[in-house]
């Protein structure tokens, strides 16, 4: 499914544009990423600002915030994920149709942020669902969210239709639903999904 670059540019100079099925598919998807309409904390205010006229998320085809997970492609986890809220977020993610992407927005969503050592805040939503783009910041500015969108678009653009390195949603074995944590007596159970996230090994001086 590849075409010689020289030939392609020569053709386009003649007014004939060629593409691949993969390119067409990814082009369509990356320019119509519909986010799920929900916010958890103050980062959501920046997310709203990013979708308004000044920053204009619509330029990326992502202005259609959907109120239902069934119609959404992208989950922007904007804000602090408390342990009480984490099962809802995972359940919403499970209800989204494939292909689905996750942007973890802000220090809290990627690691727990200033509440990391607290008793009630999840230390990053990537413990339960696979996250595609992490944005640091407290909160990240709307430009950072736009950057994350562009990063996500590049990621979508690079996804393969077939082969062993094809995109996750083409793999019949890859899971579409992830286990929802249960409320335990002292913590969420399990505290993390080992298939998605493992604590990084602490090494220093290497």
């Amino acid at each position, binding site marked *: 499914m590849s075409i010689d670059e020289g030939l392609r540019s020569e053709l386009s100079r003649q007014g004939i544009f060629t593409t691949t099925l993969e390119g067409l598919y990814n082009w369509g998807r990356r320019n119509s990423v519909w986010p799920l309409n929900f916010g958890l904390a103050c980062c959501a205010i920046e997310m709203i600002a990013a979708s308004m006229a000044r920053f204009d998320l619509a330029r990326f085809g992502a202005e259609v915030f959907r109120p239902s997970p069934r119609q959404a492609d992208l989950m922007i986890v904007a804000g602090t994920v408390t342990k*009480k809220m984490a099962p809802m977020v995972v359940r919403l993610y499970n209800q989204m149709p494939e292909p689905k992407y996750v942007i973890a927005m802000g220090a809290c969503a990627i690691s727990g942020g200033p509440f990391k050592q607290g008793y009630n805040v999840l230390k990053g939503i990537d413990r339960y669902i696979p996250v595609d783009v992490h944005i640091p910041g407290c909160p990240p500015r709307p430009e950072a969210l736009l950057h994350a969108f562009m990063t996500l678009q590049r990621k979508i653009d690079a996804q393969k239709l077939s082969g062993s390195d094809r995109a996750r949603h083409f793999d019949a074995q890859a899971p579409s639903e992830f286990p929802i944590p249960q409320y335990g007596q*002292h913590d969420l159970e399990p505290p993390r999904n080992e298939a998605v996230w493992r604590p990084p*090994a602490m090494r*220093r001086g290497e």
Partner: protein
Amino acid sequence: MSPLDQVVARIGAAIPGARVQILPNDSPSGQHSLLVDHEHAVAVAKFLRDDPDLQLDHLANVTGVDWLDATVKEKAKVRKVINGAEKEVEETLERKKPGFLEAVYHLYSIARNHGPVILRLRTGNRIDQVRVPSLTPIWRGAEFQEREIYDLYGIVFDGHPDLRRILMWDEFQDHPMRKDYVEPDDYEYEPTAHDKVLEKAKKHHTAADRPQL
């Protein structure tokens, strides 16, 4: 507003048998508070709200305090016989101070523009006598804050209309704001590995990958 000792005297006159004690505050703010006994707490609160001179109609804040068991060192002068002669010696005495939980109510009057009057309710201990009367029937605004104190400190408010956990989930067993709360050990690499954090981190790494910190 009349001084606090007058308030106490008027409470004593209005509610016979009420034991109200002034807890002094030595800090520059000098916000002394009233320790109220359980039996008359609701009656005292009602008096404070309805008395025409006080009219403490606004409950600004309810919070909890956890006082651990403590040993208090006090210096005292004791007469002792040393080497046959009686002398006055200064000795340090250790006194056990049992712990308790405390609910603190900050009251203001919007009608008369004064305040705060601070009420304190203390539990018997930190383990099994953790009940205090609820003041929600007097000030409706106390409802959610008393629920929060129940959630985070474990004080049980008798007479509360809907005493459930409010921040943590219902299945949760601990009271996270108590000073002896131990958080779940889901520790991993932290950028700032100091002291207690470092000790925890070491436990989670085998000898092979343990860093030389």
